[in-house]
């Protein structure tokens, strides 16, 4: 009998809810592998919706939810998706999730949804979302994909928030709609920086943020 001699298969360590892989999935995109600063994805929306901090935050939350949710959905059906049409299947799922988010915005945050206008719909084409589906969710189990989605969304959101904060304070002297630059300063001749309200201002800021982030994280051009 040869079967008796066969060793039992090596015990696979049952991964905990927050094993090394899981921590990596959520922590990496926040800094080392940041979708904006490192991969330079999702630039279009980060220029368009960062004139005010609240817009940037809602957009960030939107992308986080959409990435996480579509990662989970795609990951749970990944073994059934025919390889030939996988991209279009991903797109259908992403679109569905984005439209649902847009509908909720319209019902509960009408003002913001009007200001975000087309950019909520454009989350569908945000490369971060599709990128994570193709690169991560198609190979990994749902829970880990969920964390990866949350991580990437938050990585996107914090950069947007920083840009939004700087633009709102220097561009309109406000923060979350409240005046923060005192009137006395305006009386003394201070003026809001008009460049900050326009897209080029965001471009310059974003460039500086990418530079600083890369200088600290030690990015090397391969």
């Amino acid at each position, binding site marked *: 009998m040869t079967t008796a001699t066969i060793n039992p298969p090596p015990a696979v360590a049952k991964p905990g809810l927050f094993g090394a892989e899981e921590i990596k999935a959520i922590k990496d995109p926040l800094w080392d592998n940041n979708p904006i600063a490192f991969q330079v994805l999702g630039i279009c929306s980060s220029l368009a919706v960062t004139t005010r901090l609240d817009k940037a935050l809602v957009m960030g939350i939107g992308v986080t939810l959409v990435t996480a949710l579509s990662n989970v959905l795609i990951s749970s059906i990944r073994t059934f998706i025919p390889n030939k049409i996988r991209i279009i299947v991903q797109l*259908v799922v992403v679109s*569905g999730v984005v439209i649902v988010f847009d509908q909720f915005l319209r019902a509960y945050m009408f003002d913001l949804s009007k200001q975000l206008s087309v950019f909520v719909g454009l989350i569908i084409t945000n490369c971060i979302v599709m990128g994570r589906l193709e690169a991560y969710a198609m190979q990994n189990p749902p829970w880990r994909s969920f964390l990866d989605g949350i991580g990437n969304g938050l990585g996107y959101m914090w950069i947007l928030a920083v840009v939004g904060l700087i633009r709102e304070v220097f561009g309109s002297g406000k923060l979350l709609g409240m005046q923060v630059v005192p009137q006395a300063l305006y009386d003394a001749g201070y003026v809001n920086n008009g460049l900050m309200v326009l897209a080029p201002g965001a471009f310059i800021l974003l460039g500086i943020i990418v530079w600083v982030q890369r200088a600290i994280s030690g990015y090397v051009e391969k």
Partner: protein
Amino acid sequence: MNTSSNGYVMGFAIGICVVISAMLAVTANFLKPTQDAAAEFDRQKNVMMAAGLVAADDQRSRTALEKLYRDRVEELVVDTETGSVAAGKTVADVGAMKSPADKRRYRVVAISKAADGAPESYVVPISGKGLWSTIYGYLALERDLVHVRGVTFYKHGETPGLGGECENPVWCAQWKGKSILDEQGKLVGVIVKKTKIDPSIPAEKAHKVDGLSGSTITSNGITRFVKADLTAFEKYLASLRTQQNK
């Protein structure tokens, strides 16, 4: 299972479409009442913005603003053919009207009142084609029914940053003080000029506003429908003017 066979691919594609459409249909139906209420509140807020009762970035709560609308704004149905208030027709009746001819004839005007109840401004709805979409807005006239008190555009599908700038409060602020009648008392409306206006020319200073750069068609559309809608209301407005002059 052979997941690359044509039959499987077709089946999968149909399946996923059905599931996602069902999800969207359920969400849309479920949220419809809340969305409609939010849109109605936005409309009311824009009437008040045009009339100068609230600022665009007003921080007051939704309940407070809704109360303000109930207290200070009165909506009336105007029969634009006779130029008088249509007795017996409510705002809800107009909303339910189906035929385009009826909709053109019966229009709703909002009158905002000062704290003591005296009419402060007359707000007429304006709408018409821009470049991509129908633009909806409100034009508020001063008590004299000649000068513009304020304007807002609250619903449109124009290109953000170009035609979409029609909702920019800075641009709308220029409309204040423009006269919709010329010196002979003929209706001219408010004209969105291509390029900037020259304030040294009296006719431009009185009737024109700066164009929206990069959006000639939106600008022309606004000029056209503002005039068309004011023309429709003119009989009613003229009768109010004669009443005031008595």
